[in-house]
């Protein structure tokens, strides 16, 4: 790292680049690519504790751990992210209410800084740096390795239940009733208005007790080209929503493989190309419990009014398990995530409006998904950000951090 520093110019650390915005980008600058650092350092298969280099992806990790009866305690919606990146974004999964974020399950990690030091961080050692690094967006140094406590599983399969919910109230109702299911999430039809606002599908699951410990296959389908952006519009999305809601084969209780339960999008490699060359923006926010229903309603109303459709609208409750990370995104409340095809000004305007609604309700936006968060919104949502800035490695900078801290550091 010292040599890199000497060459001048800041660097950002880059895993697999699956963050939706600019947390791991560095315009006109340099990146440290972590994909070569992908070894297992140590594995205790009795206790389910593994120490791995930070460039290893969940995909590679589970290929090794699942046959041995272990699973990541928290997993994001795609396997193709690195452990380092997952810790740096303090990712959450469908089981936030029971397990919190990934940072809670990191027993130790190794961090290299440009001073030449390599620190071991944990909840007991170098605690301030640990808190700054979990969710710290790669700013405190290069995470070299992560030691994780895994979850024991008896089967690679999940018992899953999916059923229709008629509107937002129903979501809150069902969510209450699903407390003994560790994994819960809802998909919502963002074009539904009025009484139907928030209608969609609720899905809940748990690891099955029986079944083989078979590993997933690699994705076979890939989008080879960017499709014309106009293909994804309110009509096609509306049609999709209509069909998706009614899928008779998806409703009811089924046994499914962990791959389709946790990583449905991974089935199509390069799915982002469906959005064409202009791409898409994602909004993911969390609002506190006390305002959750009202604010979520308002956000969905804004989306429906705007008429911009989104296929992937996820609604989920967050629990109160605290994260050790200073910049950790979840808070007890409800999170909403949606993609919007990039139509330029109108999309940015919608995102800004949604951001205002979220901030007014005392919530915040998720840096890992963000490309447009204003500096004010960031600082209001993460009032302890200066503590992370204080621990930032001087040779590291990302476009995101530049954007949200400008004029303030």
């Amino acid at each position, binding site marked *: 790292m010292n040599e890199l520093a000497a060459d001048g110019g800041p660097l950002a650390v880059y895993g697999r680049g699956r963050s939706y915005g600019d947390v791991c980008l560095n315009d006109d600058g340099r990146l440290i690519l972590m994909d*070569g650092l992908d*070894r*297992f*350092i*140590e*594995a205790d298969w009795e206790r389910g504790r*593994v120490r791995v280099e930070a460039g290893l992806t969940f995909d590679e990790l589970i290929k*090794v751990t699942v046959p041995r009866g272990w699973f990541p305690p928290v997993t994001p919606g795609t396997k193709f992210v690195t452990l380092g990146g997952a810790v740096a974004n303090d990712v959450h999964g469908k089981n936030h209410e029971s397990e919190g974020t990934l940072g809670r399950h990191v027993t130790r990690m190794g961090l290299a800084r440009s001073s030449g030091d390599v620190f071991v961080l944990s909840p007991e050692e170098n605690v301030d740096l640990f808190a700054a690094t979990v969710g710290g967006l790669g700013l405190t140094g290069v995470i070299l390795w992560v030691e994780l406590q895994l979850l024991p599983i008896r089967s690679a399969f999940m018992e899953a239940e999916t059923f229709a919910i008629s509107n937002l109230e129903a979501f809150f109702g069902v969510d209450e009733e699903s407390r003994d299911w560790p994994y819960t999430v809802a998909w919502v039809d963002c074009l539904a208005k009025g009484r139907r606002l928030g209608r969609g599908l609720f899905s809940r699951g748990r690891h099955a007790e029986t079944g083989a410990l078979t590993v997933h296959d690699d994705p076979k389908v890939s989008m080879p080209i960017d499709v014309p952006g106009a293909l994804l519009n309110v009509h096609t999305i509306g049609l999709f929503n209509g069909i998706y809601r009614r899928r008779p084969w998806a409703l009811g209780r089924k046994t499914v493989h962990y791959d389709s339960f946790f990583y449905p999008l991974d089935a199509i490699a390069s799915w982002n190309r469906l959005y064409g060359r202009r791409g898409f923006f994602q909004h993911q926010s969390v609002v506190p419990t006390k305002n959750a229903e009202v604010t979520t309603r308002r956000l969905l109303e804004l989306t429906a009014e705007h008429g911009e459709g989104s296929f992937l609208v996820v609604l989920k409750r967050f629990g109160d398990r605290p994260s050790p990370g200073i910049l950790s995104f979840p808070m007890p409340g409800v999170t909403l995530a949606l993609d919007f095809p990039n139509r330029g000004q109108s999309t940015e305007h919608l995102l800004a409006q949604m951001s205002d609604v979220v901030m007014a309700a005392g919530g915040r936006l998720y840096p890992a998904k963000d490309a447009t968060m204003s500096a004010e919104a960031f600082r209001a949502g993460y009032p302890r950000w200066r503590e992370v800035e204080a621990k930032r490695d001087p040779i590291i900078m990302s476009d995101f951090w530049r954007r949200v801290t400008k004029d303030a550091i």
Partner: protein
Amino acid sequence: MSRVLVLGAASAIAEAYARRRAAEGAHFGLVGRREDRLAAVAADLRARGAKSAETAVADLAAIDGIEAAALNVRARFGDPDEIVIAYGTLGTQGEAERDLALARRILDTNFTSAALWLLALLKDHPAGAPLTVVVIGSVAGDRGRASNFIYGAAKGGLDRFVEGLAQKYAHTAVRFVLVKPGFVDTPMTAAIAKGGPLWATPDRVGRDIHRAAMRGRRVVYTPWFWRPIMAIIRALPWFIFKRLKI
């Protein structure tokens, strides 16, 4: 269970291939120059399922020491049923044309030492015992090109050498797999600008080697598209070839 001897175990391609064998529960003997690297590879392979992974430090390119080193390796690891020759050095063509010591190093490392290691290891191989020998060559060896003929000739020579061995051992339990990768994104090519569909990951190459070794293919181009590309390049008549800037 399989006993795999890897010369150049810290090589990205070797590691990618070894991981697949580790998942099958092989035993490994890992040889290379850097102890710390070998230890890291060994730990990774063990975590991924290798029944054992032992390491030995040796300068594989030190020609005078090869015979003794080979005996040493056999004493330490026993008789392997698979040998992987995966070490090499790319060098820089332009510099090597003027710096003969560099040119010699490229030729000696990639060709002479590899050839001698093969002879040394085969010499003491128990007659009749099955053995698969995987040698990492390169598409660069398929034809002498102005841009890379020093490295290319070394790999081309190795190609001929392994071909001869394959003919000699054709009706025995010893078989050879000559792997010819094209552009692979590894530390060896770190200085070269990457991009475009021709670049492969070590993982992809490792997978192709695994398939080829299982099926007993003698020559494998990886990825597959290098086979037709090099077939064309080899077939070009001189009056056309001499005009190409490759």
